[in-house]
């Protein structure tokens, strides 16, 4: 047990060292005047293309503490993400259940589903901007199209792979069609949904940011777009780092919910710690 804890600490230490190393390298290579330019004509160019970690940190600090002006944008982006994620998941779940349980509908719609899934859906963003305006709705719509298919395919698969024995058993125990849906298909599909949740929450985030980037008046994607317009690479990088941080946070949140709801699933280590 102690060894395992040591091992975890060892890994964490290395992860931290790697992070620090990357930033130090970044800093050394971009700080004008620190090392002679290796690839560029003058020593300001590296900073222009890659930004400087210290200035990026100052930018983030200003956003969160001194100016405290990022929260408005963050709230917008996160709202879009959560809405896209929620709506997309519910739609995917409903559609997946319906098609999996209705072979005729599934046979009829199959080519359309395949077509819709293989279409590069990011390209829909301008259309959604025309339909829903430059506000939150168009970003949510884009995120929904991304999340929907992930959840849909997983639910569809999940329902198809319900153990026939468990199903027969539930029928023998007297479950009606509705009860089968509620007590067998849905829980079985849910486990598949959860396995896709990490992907779909990430895609919801992508939908929101890309949507903002393509046309909006607020949100973190908008901040990045603005900075890019004035060649402010430090702010662009700062925006990217903030987005990455929040993506990690969302992922951790999903992991936590998953562990709570999926406790019936076997895990590798089932021994109790003494």
């Amino acid at each position: 047990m102690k060894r395992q804890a040591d091992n975890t600490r060892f890994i964490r230490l290395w992860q931290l060292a790697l992070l620090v190393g990357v930033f130090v390298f970044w800093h050394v290579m971009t700080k004008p005047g620190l090392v002679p330019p290796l690839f560029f004509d003058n020593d300001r160019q590296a900073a222009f293309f890659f930004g400087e970690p210290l200035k990026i940190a100052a930018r983030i600090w200003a956003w969160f503490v001194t100016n405290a002006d990022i929260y408005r944008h963050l709230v917008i982006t996160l709202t879009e993400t959560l809405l896209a994620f929620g709506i997309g998941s519910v739609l995917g779940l409903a559609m997946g259940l319906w098609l999996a349980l209705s072979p005729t509908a599934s046979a009829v719609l199959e080519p359309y589903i395949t077509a819709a899934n293989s279409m590069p859906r990011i390209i829909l963003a301008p259309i959604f901007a025309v339909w829903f305006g430059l506000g939150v709705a168009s970003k949510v719509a884009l995120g929904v199209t991304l999340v929907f298919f992930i959840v849909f395919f997983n639910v569809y698969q999940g329902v198809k792979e319900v153990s026939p024995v468990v199903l027969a058993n539930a029928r023998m125990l007297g479950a009606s069609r509705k009860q089968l849906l509620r007590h067998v298909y849905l829980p079985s599909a849910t486990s598949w949904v959860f396995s896709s949740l990490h992907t779909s929450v990430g895609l919801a985030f992508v939908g929101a940011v890309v949507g903002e980037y393509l046309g909006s008046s607020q949100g973190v994607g908008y901040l990045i777009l603005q900075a890019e317009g004035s060649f402010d690479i430090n702010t662009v990088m700062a925006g990217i780092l903030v987005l990455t941080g929040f993506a990690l946070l969302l992922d951790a949140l999903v992991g936590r919910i998953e562990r709570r709801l999926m406790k019936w699933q076997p895990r590798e280590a089932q021994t109790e710690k003494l």
Partner: protein
Amino acid sequence: MPTAAALTLNGVACTFASRDDPSQRYTAVSDVTLTVGAGEFVAVVGPTGCGKSTLLNVAAGLLAPSAGVVQVFGNQLEGINRRAGYMFQADSLMPWRTAQQNVMAGLEFRGVALTDARVQADEWLKRVGLGGFGGRYPHQLSGGMKKRTSLAQTLALDPDIILMDEPFSALDIQTRQLMENEVLALWSAGERRAAPSSPSAPRATQGPLQGLGGRREAQGGQERKAVLFITHDLDEAIAMSDRVIVMSAGPASRPIGEFAVDLARPRDVAEIKTSQRFVELHAAIWAVLRDEVLKGYAQQLQVKAA
């Protein structure tokens, strides 16, 4: 006592069309006629792949026969057999429900109030020896414990007929004998109470295994449950049942022998195997079964070669 048998299969045949080529047909069972009397324990043995499970699925109403009729207490069966409980060979517990939630599932489906169902489920878990395990999920239970949970799940609904499809084949031999004895004890608990000839006799429901079919008594029905038990293990079949039916090798397998097992009850499945009568019965049934087993084996080899 109702005169109608608990379960009657009359001229039942099951033909499956191949999924790849509908012109290819496979007849699993054909012309099967068998009867399970109320309160009778009938075992069906046969070589592997002889369609024993198909037969059970027909009796359960999960599978409609291609020909023939299934009757349950005199009524023709349509759809799921509501008076039967089914113990499957494979894991049949819902993995997202705890043992307790699994046992109460059937009651829940039938609209019993949740608090009521929970109490009954706990009682059944206690009765199958899983008193403290109600909160465990199936993956936290051993194979034997899962089977016990399945048994409790089936019995909690108080079915008149129990269908068992090699329920203990996946268990190790010790656990298996324990389970067999426990099933016999639970099954014959009804008999013990039925022993007083008058139905109005005081409830002789002492002992830990009491109460099997208590509600049935109020309805004035029979006490013991009819059991149709499928197995490939002849020892198990003889040790547990009142009657052993031997199936021929597939395809188109059908009953080819029937033996009444006149061993005294209560039985201990381990001890009874040494009794003289058991050995005689075993020899007699095996004489019929052996040829079929060889036939079935030869056919499987042919299929593999083809």
